[in-house]
């Protein structure tokens, strides 16, 4: 685990991804389309996934709370936006993902997992059925690996287009819809996990944007794919709305942790399968019945018999944060490890997620984490720590 560094070393550390072994070492740190925009807004920039990215503007705590109460604009342009086209793209992709992709209707999206040949998780991703084919958003840190893997395993007639000429913005929070509908009329018609094309800009020369009602904070919100050339103008217009402030990666991490959402490379990696990752919901009913995807024997066995270890939430007694890498004990026996941990600004206390062995991972199990040689009490708790506030179809609002 990472030991505390000196204050000076912490301040000098610009690589937020830390010891991320799944990340290729980039030759140079790249700039995203909104780089100058972030700096103008007073962002502190760090290296993340091979790019300079904003970790915070006014402060992680304030940005986190603002997003939970209002709306926060996140630049997630480091993520890979892929378009899969060609006859049978959905069926072909199903060899590598456990979701029912061929049943996905146009304008609907699904969270899924890219599986290695042994059923380990290579990435998590959002897959949307679009008129052209499948629009897939993957994590920035592994997008090059993903593209190579997809190319290797998809038939030649399926084309993979990396849309690196587009930026990706996320507007998240309870007031996101109020703000965005003023900038892009009609987006309020979308429900959670739906997407569509919307016109933005002057009537004489409107620009089509691809917008989904989705995100990774646990709040209602949208993700907006925009041509890089127009990203600044769009970000300016959205940020001019009184509900909106720009929010950095720091708050994105604390928001997703409170929402119980895993971070790839930390809470998921190639050794871990979907059942262990508590992502069995991503294994669709038809796929469970039919099998036939990478690692399906392992995954279906895990579903039937229970996994040997499982990703769970852990509430932490006291105020000391328990961070990634901390071992977890039941008495003298190590029964798990923390994979994400920190302070939850909306929870008002430290929270964590980690892998805990079978027999010790039921909700309410009392365990101890070890931090700097000291034991701290942790309790297995149900996720999320903060309830999700998605705009679901058919839900009471």
């Amino acid at each position, binding site marked *: 685990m990472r030991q*505390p*560094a*000196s*204050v*000076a*070393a*912490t*301040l000098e*550390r610009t690589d*937020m991804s830390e010891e991320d072994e799944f990340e290729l070492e980039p030759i140079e740190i790249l700039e995203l389309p909104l780089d100058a925009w972030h700096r103008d807004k007073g962002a502190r920039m760090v290296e993340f996934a091979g790019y300079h990215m904003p*970790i*915070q503007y006014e*402060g*992680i*705590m*304030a940005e*986190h709370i603002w997003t939970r109460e209002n709306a926060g604009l996140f630049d997630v342009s480091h993520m890979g936006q892929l378009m899969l086209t060609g006859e049978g793209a959905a069926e072909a992709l199903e060899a590598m993902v456990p979701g029912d992709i061929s049943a996905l209707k146009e304008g609907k999206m699904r969270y899924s997992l890219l599986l290695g040949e042994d059923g380990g998780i290579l990435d998590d991703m959002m897959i949307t059925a679009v008129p052209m084919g499948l629009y897939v958003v993957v994590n920035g840190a592994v997008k090059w690996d993903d593209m190579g893997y997809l190319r290797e395993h998809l038939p030649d007639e399926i084309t993979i287009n990396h849309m690196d000429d587009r930026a990706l913005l996320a507007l998240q929070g309870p007031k996101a819809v109020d703000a965005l509908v003023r900038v892009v009329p009609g987006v309020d018609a979308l429900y959670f996990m739906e997407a569509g094309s919307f016109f933005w800009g002057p009537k004489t020369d409107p620009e089509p944007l691809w917008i989904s009602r989705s995100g990774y904070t646990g709040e209602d919100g949208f993700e907006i794919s925009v041509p890089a050339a127009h990203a600044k103008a769009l970000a300016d217009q959205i940020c001019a709305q009184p509900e909106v402030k720009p929010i950095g990666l*720091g708050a994105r*991490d*604390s928001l997703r942790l409170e929402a119980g959402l895993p971070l790839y490379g930390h809470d998921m990696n190639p050794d871990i399968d979907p059942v262990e990752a508590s992502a069995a919901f991503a294994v669709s009913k038809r796929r469970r019945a039919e099998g036939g995807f990478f690692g399906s024997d392992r995954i279906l066995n895990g579903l039937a018999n229970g996994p040997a270890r499982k990703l769970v939430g852990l509430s932490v007694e006291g*105020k*000391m*944060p328990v*961070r990634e890498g901390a071992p977890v004990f039941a008495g003298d026996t190590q029964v798990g490890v923390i994979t994400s941990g*920190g*302070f939850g*600004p909306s929870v008002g206390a*430290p929270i964590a997620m980690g892998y805990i062995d079978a027999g010790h991972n039921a909700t309410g199990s009392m365990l101890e984490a070890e931090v*700097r040689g000291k034991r701290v009490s942790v309790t297995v708790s149900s996720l999320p720590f903060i309830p999700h506030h998605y705009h679901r179809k058919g839900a009471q609002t």
Partner: protein
Amino acid sequence: MTRYFTEDHEWIEVDGDSATVGITDYAQSQLGDIVFAEVPATGATLKKGGDAAVVESVKAASDVYAPVSGTVIEGNDALEGDPALVNSDPEGEGWFFKITLSDTSELDSLMDAAAYKAFVDGL
């Protein structure tokens, strides 16, 4: 009383053979929201440059080093209930611990306020 600074962004205010230690305003502003601080126990023996305390922001844990060697007289218990004191008053109420110096000549290697300001300006 004289205040000295380290390149690790600790300050130490010396009064005779005892001193108060904390982290600088620059350090707190760069670390961001402090959510936890762990101070040394009274009576603990510290060695110059050794681990003395821990400060944690939302994002990361950092060690606070002892600017000089000595014995801890008192840790700032107020930080346990209100770690944000390190943000609001880093060079006052947000102090970490008080120490009896075992070797005042160790102060010679530290920076004064002007030198620390120049050091920070150069970062």
